[in-house]
């Protein structure tokens, strides 16, 4: 396994030899910022085209096929269009909140991206409360949605925003408290890198058997709800509210909401991979030494993005199959089904860990 911290350490030493430490820190910050912004933009572009292509195939269509080979540059063209568009808003909006809301929704996923381990030693901000940090920061996004809905001065937007608030507040509960905590019990750490390293003997999804699988299913459901995607997309509910909370946004401000939805999807998938599917660790089958060795040659980041892609595909599959739930049904699902089951699952998991039944 290649340790990426060697590479980053070398860069740090080289910079330190050239200039004072305060300048080094500044340059490193800027570098990391640029890298993450680039990653953010690329993810947005790739995921949007992926979604549209996959949607096309689910519906016997071709998807975008005009711009570039197989329509691969469609999202680039769309981005340029959105950047060039006039920013239209009604004059009844609450100007300050209206303008600040898109940044809230974009900041939350950016901050979470900092703590995710993309490879061995490839984490921007390796803190020991990583999981807690993720849970805390991901709640910021909903503030942006609420602000957008409120400040738009549009009843449809407001309804969408309020729905979003209700959903996210309740689903964070079973997501954080139970689904993720179940794995923390196994791994014994909140640090995402440690959680990954603890899965070297096998992914938690398999090693934790039944309780881990239940936790994984609950996590995927809550994750879909957190990202406001079908079947939980009632915040923008096309057929009911038009576009919900971002109905009054246009141009690049709308693009921010649009992008953040897709990057949120990436983050939910990335967390699922980190916690349940062994992060950047290669796929191993116990006993098959030759196979395992050859798997080791594929670098960690590739494994990470590959696994994330699988989960993202699963989320897209949901989106293009299921109808939408109603607001009270969503809350019923959370409070009457997911929360009791996941609490029960937590007890079960604690029991499993106590008895040492982990493989």
């Amino acid at each position, binding site marked *: 396994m290649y340790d990426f911290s060697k590479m980053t350490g070398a860069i740090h030493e080289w910079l330190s030899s050239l200039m004072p430490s305060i300048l080094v820190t500044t340059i490193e910050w800027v570098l990391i910022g640029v890298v993450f912004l680039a990653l953010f933009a690329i993810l947005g572009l790739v995921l949007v085209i992926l979604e549209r292509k996959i949607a096309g195939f689910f*519906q016997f*269509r071709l998807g975008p096929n005009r711009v570039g080979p197989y329509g691969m540059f469609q999202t680039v063209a769309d981005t340029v269009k959105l950047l060039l568009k006039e920013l239209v808003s009604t004059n009844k909006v609450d100007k300050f909140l209206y303008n600040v809301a898109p940044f809230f929704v974009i900041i939350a996923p950016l901050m979470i991206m900092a703590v995710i381990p993309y490879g061995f030693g490839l984490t921007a901000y390796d803190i020991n409360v990583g999981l807690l940090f993720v849970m805390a920061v991901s709640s910021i996004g909903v503030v942006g949605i609420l602000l957008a809905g409120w400040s738009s001065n549009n*009843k*449809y937007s407001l309804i969408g925003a309020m729905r979003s608030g209700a959903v996210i507040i309740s689903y964070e509960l079973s997501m954080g408290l139970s689904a993720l905590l179940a794995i923390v019990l196994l791994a014994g750490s909140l640090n995402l890198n440690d959680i990954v390293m603890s899965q070297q003997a096998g992914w938690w999804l398999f090693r934790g058997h039944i309780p881990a699988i239940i936790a994984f299913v609950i996590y995927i459901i809550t994750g879909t709800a957190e990202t406001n995607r079908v079947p939980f997309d009632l915040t923008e509910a*096309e057929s009911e509210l038009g576009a919900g909370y971002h109905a009054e946004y246009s141009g690049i401000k709308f693009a921010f909401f649009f992008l953040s939805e897709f990057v949120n999807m990436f983050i939910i998938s990335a967390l699922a991979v980190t916690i349940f599917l062994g992060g950047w660790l290669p796929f191993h089958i116990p006993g098959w030494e030759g196979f395992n060795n050859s798997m080791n040659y594929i670098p960690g980041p590739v494994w990470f993005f590959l696994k994330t892609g699988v989960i993202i595909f699963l989320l897209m599959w949901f989106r293009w199959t*299921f*109808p939408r739930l*109603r*607001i009270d049904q969503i809350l019923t699902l959370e409070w009457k089904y997911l929360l009791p089951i996941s609490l029960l699952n937590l007890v079960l998991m604690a029991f499993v860990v106590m008895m040492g039944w982990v493989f």
Partner: protein
Amino acid sequence: MTTTDVNTNLKTQEYLINMGPQHPAAHGVLRLILTVDGEIIHKVDPDLGYIHRSIEKMCERDTYKQIVHLTDRLDYLSSHINNEAVCLAVENALGIEVPDRVKYIRTIMAELTRLASHQLWWGVMGMDIGALTAFMYAFRDREMINDIMEETVGARLTMNYNIPGGLMFDIHPGFQKKVKDFIKHFRKALPEYNTLLSDNIIFKKRLQGIGYISKEDAIAYGVSGPSARGSGISCDVRKIHPYSAYDKVEFNEILIEGGDSYDRYMVRMKEMEESMNIIDQLIDNIPEGDFQVKTPALIKLPKGEYYQKVETARGELGVFIISDGKKSPYRFKFRSPGFSNLSILDKISRGHKIADLVAIMSSLDFVIPDIDR
């Protein structure tokens, strides 16, 4: 402080929402003024007329042969059946008996139209509930019907295939084979529809118990078609007052007693099977003969009143003609199914949520030009 005081203090403010005229769930330009408390609907006030073209007034100006093509634009999804209604009314008034061949072809065409309409409804219903893929599946199958129509009739949607006294042309030589191919394909596709949506737990939960219409209400409000049959009312004009070749075929009138949106949904799903059965019985037995009877170039109906009922995909369409013996009718009234079905919307959607209103509206299957005329 008494409990009543607490309640009055907690009273929240009602507000108005304009749903439409441009709204994805309005299926056209229908404007609903909703009085809402939070998400709970207290009152629905439909505001119509955004695409009112005054077809009834135009009919008073046109000759009977010209009127037929206007009815394409009433309920554009059952345009063939609308044409048929006018033609039947005129033929009955003149005492013309059309050949059996015409009756058979008209019936097959009407059932194909009904299938196409129900397919579109199914796709749009899925889309209203949030399942976007259903729409494309429905359109794949509907496209085949449209192709059949294009080949025989010459138009895909506004067909204008009937003329008083028969049909505009004979069927295309490839018609029977194409229809059979379609039926074969659709018999396989319909179970897929059911697995994708009808059995889906989310879909069921969204529709069951929503928008309940009691038997009495349905009759009193004049609800007809699949929407009424979902409340267990036998109201199929094809059974009660048979026209064209409906007295020659065996088919079941689908009746479900429940009365909620899911029952209305299931009635339509099962009606598609019945439509296929009807086509199966007729398609191989189209008798030889003329495809039209000679009518005078300028039809003049004898003085009097004529009423003709037919069953469109949405319910009972009535054509009421008052003639004063001239070349144009004195008064031409369409009793459109959507108009009466809409009148019950306020009653059944009170107390439900906005999302439910969307579901109720698609379960009643509105086509706005049919309401606005």
